[in-house]
């Protein structure tokens, strides 16, 4: 797959337009956002063909497609920022586990349907207001990618919330599974709000979003959904961390092996 945003003659949006942040934090930031989207997109695609109902199979595949589409735009930009000629395929398929900087939440296995929906609610409820803020980024390219993604994420929030409400306020079994899913995932929510030094510098330059400022909107969506689902928000606890530094759970490696095998067995393969 190739997305040409750098056709001959078209100047790519200048990296770090605001001028105060060096190029490397922008590369790291763009890659981290791309990795989040790709890893969760791939996880969702693992439901294709075996979701609980046909409609849900199609829904999960569509959600996966949105995320993979967002990842492609971000990887294409990351390749340009880096300036070493790496394509979106190179970045997605030819980096090893520890080079991925996605948050741990998105690499968690699909589990049952309740866990997949709880994970998606937690992610989408953050990314929707995140992209809404990023569309005002001083970096023109990130801003235009965010302006597209924010519209898609609104559908993700609605779909995941509808399911969490239906499952939480559903049968004894669906309720117990949803409670368990939230409980299992809660320690991965802390990473949504983590910012390293590079990201803080980008935020100060108006390029990155201050993740802490997204918390109120995230909490509103989570609390309103859980209230409608008659579920309690899991108690605050110790938060797991490390994904942004390339320290992953045992689940990412096998997922990447499956995702990358075709491209690595047949380098440069195209449709």
């Amino acid at each position, binding site marked *: *797959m190739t*997305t*040409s*945003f750098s*056709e*001959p*003659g*078209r100047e790519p949006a200048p990296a770090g337009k605001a001028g105060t942040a060096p190029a490397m934090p922008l590369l790291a930031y763009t890659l981290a956002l791309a990795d989040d989207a790709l890893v969760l997109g791939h996880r969702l695609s693992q439901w294709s063909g075996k979701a609980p109902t046909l*409609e*849900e199979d*199609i*829904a999960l*595949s*569509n*959600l*996966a*497609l*949105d*995320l*993979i*589409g*967002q990842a*492609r*735009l971000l990887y294409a930009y990351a390749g340009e920022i880096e300036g070493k000629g790496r394509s979106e395929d190179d970045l997605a398929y030819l980096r090893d586990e520890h080079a991925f900087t996605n948050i741990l939440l998105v690499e968690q296995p699909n589990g049952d349907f309740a866990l997949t929906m709880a994970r998606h609610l937690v992610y989408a409820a953050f990314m929707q207001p995140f992209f809404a803020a990023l569309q005002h980024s001083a970096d*023109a390219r990130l*801003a*235009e*990618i965010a*302006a*597209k*993604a924010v*519209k*898609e994420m*609104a*559908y993700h929030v*609605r*779909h995941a919330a509808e399911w969490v409400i239906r499952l939480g306020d559903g049968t004894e079994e669906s309720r117990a599974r949803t409670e368990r899913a939230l409980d299992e995932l809660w320690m991965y929510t802390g990473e949504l709000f983590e910012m390293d030094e590079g990201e803080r510098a980008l935020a100060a330059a108006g390029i990155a979003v201050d993740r802490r400022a997204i918390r109120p909107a995230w909490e509103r969506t989570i609390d309103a959904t859980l209230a409608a689902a008659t579920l309690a928000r899991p108690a605050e606890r110790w938060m797991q961390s490390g994904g942004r530094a390339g320290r992953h759970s045992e689940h990412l490696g096998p997922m990447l092996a499956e995702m990358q095998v075709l491209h690595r067995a047949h380098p440069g393969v195209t449709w």
Partner: protein
Amino acid sequence: MTRSPAQRRPAPARARGEAAPDEGYAGLARVQRVAAAVVDPEIPVLTLEDLGVLRGVERRKGRIVVQITPTYTGCPATHAIRLAVEAALAEAGFADAVVETVLSPPWSTDQITDEGRRKLQAYGIAPPPRGARARTLFGSETVACPRCGATETTRISEFGSTPCKALWRCGRCAEPFDYFKCL
């Protein structure tokens, strides 16, 4: 919306045929017509003009550049559309034309033309209401059945056969139908 080339030249004599590189504004207008008439691979009644995804045609450093914008970021049709535009232009004599993807401003269903809406309806796909995105996304939607016009319809699935569609059913004629959802 055709962008004028930076240096507009008078249309030269047609000695070298219509596709001559120096054809100027008239040539670009023809590129625009050819690209605008390409149909969407997944909804083949809609042209790119109907869909509102053709963003501009210009000449840059001697090459013709056609700009298109994707509907959904992950829509596989974007790639197919790109190839279809290049093929149509090659057939029309513009073999070196390139298709470029632009993101900004983001595409919205409001950019589907009135003609496009009429074609969708006739094809059995309920067209999206105009300017109603916020209301339809977070409020109650009223979608009329494209077959019988009844408004007693229910949503079966938020996600349909392509990223841009949802699956609905009519309560009067009992037919399921696609609804082009607002973006």
